[in-house]
């Protein structure tokens, strides 16, 4: 490892100042676009790309490919020869994607990645989302609790359970109906959805608006938190530089 022969505290201070300056330049975009901000943007892209690529090469490519090849050549194999040969072959084919003429040679490798990803996505979607969420949608009518409520004379709570179940099920089904675009042809007239589906879809518009508003508010809160953290950072830098509180 190489470490710069600079006082670590000084280095840290310089880093803080640079970070503060970069933060101010970036925040200035909220008021007006300017060339300095664009330069900072390109700097960010370069640093992020270089950092990510270096991590990928150092932590995966070298230990999983380069070093086993060297070990194999040195006579101290650490991986199965066939496995290593497949890795070298696949890597070579994938690297052809850099060339415009030979890019199609890398198609089988990208196909492998796509096929594996698709299979994992299918399994995860069914097991992790579809089954639990459909189960939750079907379990809105908490029959056991409703029965207990009736037995205990809590009729208000019982009605509330029923009402909640209806609303939640309606919200789920109407949202799904909104994205149903199947319609019967009517000759020269515009195709029209089934009247029941259409009514459900119109109700779904309201629920989707509510859902989108919830997501929007979440993003607003997240970005506000980020803004607060940045302003707090600037405050700390100023305090640190000028020896304030």
């Amino acid at each position: 490892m190489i470490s710069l022969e600079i006082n670590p505290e000084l280095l840290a201070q310089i880093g803080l100042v640079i970070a503060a300056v970069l933060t101010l330049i970036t925040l200035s975009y909220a008021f007006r676009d300017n060339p300095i901000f664009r330069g900072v943007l390109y700097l960010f892209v370069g640093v992020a790309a270089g950092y990510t690529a270096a991590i990928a090469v150092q932590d995966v490519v070298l230990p999983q490919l380069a070093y086993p090849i060297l070990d194999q050549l040195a006579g101290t194999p650490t991986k199965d020869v066939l496995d290593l040969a497949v890795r070298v072959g696949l890597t070579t084919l994938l690297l052809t994607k850099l060339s415009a003429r030979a890019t199609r040679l890398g198609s089988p490798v990208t196909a492998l990645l796509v096929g594996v990803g698709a299979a994992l996505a299918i399994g995860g979607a069914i097991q992790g989302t579809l089954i639990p969420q459909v189960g939750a949608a079907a379990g809105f009518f908490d029959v056991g609790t409703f029965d207990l409520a009736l037995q205990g004379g809590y009729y208000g709570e019982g009605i509330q359970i029923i009402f909640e179940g209806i609303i939640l099920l309606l919200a789920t089904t109407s949202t799904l109906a909104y994205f149903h675009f199947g319609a019967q042809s009517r000759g020269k007239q515009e195709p029209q959805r089934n009247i029941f589906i259409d009514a459900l879809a119109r109700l779904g518009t309201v629920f989707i608006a509510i859902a989108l508003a919830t997501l929007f508010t979440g993003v607003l809160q997240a970005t506000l938190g980020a803004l607060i953290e940045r302003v707090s950072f600037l405050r700390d830098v100023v305090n640190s530089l000028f020896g304030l509180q």
Partner: protein
Amino acid sequence: MTYHSGQDPEESLPDWLKALRKRQSQEPTSPEGEDSSAPEPDEEEPDWLRDIRQRYGFPESGPETDSHQKPENALSDTQPIIPSRAVETRPNHEREVFSQGPMAEEPIEDTPEQPSQEWINEEPAAEVPQPESPRREFPDWLEELGEVEGTAIKEDELAPHIPAFTEGTEPELIPGVLPSWLEAIRPGGAFPQEDTRSEEMLPSAEKIGGPLAGLSGVLPAEPDAIQSFKPPVYSARLEVTDSQSQHAAAFKKMLEEEGKPKGDQGHQVALPIRLINTLIGTAIFVAVLVPLLSQSQLAPRPEPDLLPENAAVFNRIDVLPSEAPVLIGLDLQPALYGETKAAITAVINHLLERQARLVFISTQPTGPGIVERLLQEELANQPAGAEGNYTNLGYLSGGMAALRSFFSDPRSATVSMSALGLNPWTSPAFDSIDSVSDFALVLVVSSNADDARIWIEQGASEFPNGLIAITSAQAAPLLRPYLQGVPQTLQGIVSGVQGAVLYERLRSQEVGGGRDLWDAYSFGLGAILLLILLGGLSGRLTHMRLERTATKITYTEPETKPAGDQLGN
């Protein structure tokens, strides 16, 4: 072309043929040594002619003509073919007469009009070896013409051709009219007197058009059998409505723009709008800065029962035994590190207080760097954190595939720590860990819902003790349905600044990262709400004013001229 009895064959000919015959009849004879007296028979005799020859004993064409086949004149076969009678018992002189019939004296021009007469005018004296033909019985009418002088026809030769009529005895052949001798030899009743052709085949039939116009005796090609009209053109145009066209155009535009690289151009905004944006930005900035500078704690913290999912996380961690291994998946984007820092710090502090053994892993390349920063800066006051009582497995490349591989067999997964030659699994802390289910708790820290959802989907069956999430405020809404899933795949969520403040309150912390930000958060949200309200109202009022102005202009009546002024001008 058929011949209709009683009708001049020449009349049935088409005009072009008539004209051609006429022209050819006017042409001079060919200078080449064609023997006009000697008929030039066709090399290939028509069958009917041959049949007549055979039936009545007429010789075929001579050897000269066989050997010196003169080329057939053009359209020679268009001339009416006038057969001759087969005379085999005539006296020689009569034969001579016959042979020297008008056709012989009148040099038969080798014309197209009468090519078939050439065989009539050939030399009668030439004894041409004829093919054998059986002796025939001659009809009575033939015998009436003269005695047979006992000259038997040689078995091997036929009598020479004798013209059917002599000069002067018969009038010249009129085209289209059967000569009397031909009429005489015509078998009675063999030819129908009536034209049995259908009306459609008659030349006078109407509606015969197209390429066969003018020809007689042809099957009509129209109107029933074949219609020579242009086939109908069926439009291949797709019938779309206006709204469908608009949607298709919009979709096409979207797809076209998708492939185009977006220009790296500055976005110029009009001055008034820029001013408003500046005011909004300044208002929010001031609303956030003032509480931070004043470090006020005016805003009350939320009640613990406000967010039950927060309490669920607290309860899960609070019952962990000492030295319990906890897996923390830090899939956090650096952009939202600042917002989630307070929540992460609060939860990890709680875990460290419970003396849990923390194992960090990340599917983001920046994850290990964030872990180090978190532990060295935010958790430096924690003894466990300061001592490094944790394990950072590093970066797990491959996203979904890597997670699946890790959940199946964590020890063989490709993590950067092991890649760097540091095998963390040899540590005594990992003696009890063979699979992911051996961890007492699995915790995922993510900035967006997709990353957390991948952990939930890929590890749903691998976490018997459940999964909890520390997320940004933007991811929480999409993860809440998993809290109510059946089976439940997510046990609890701590999200955003509000979640951090609540968690600190649950841990009875009076100070913390969340509390420091809470006032600024409260004032900032208030400023945002006011700005949205004011902006919306002002926009609405401006719009209404513009609409009113536009309505006034529309309804302004034009000035009407008076019909005439009072002075009579």
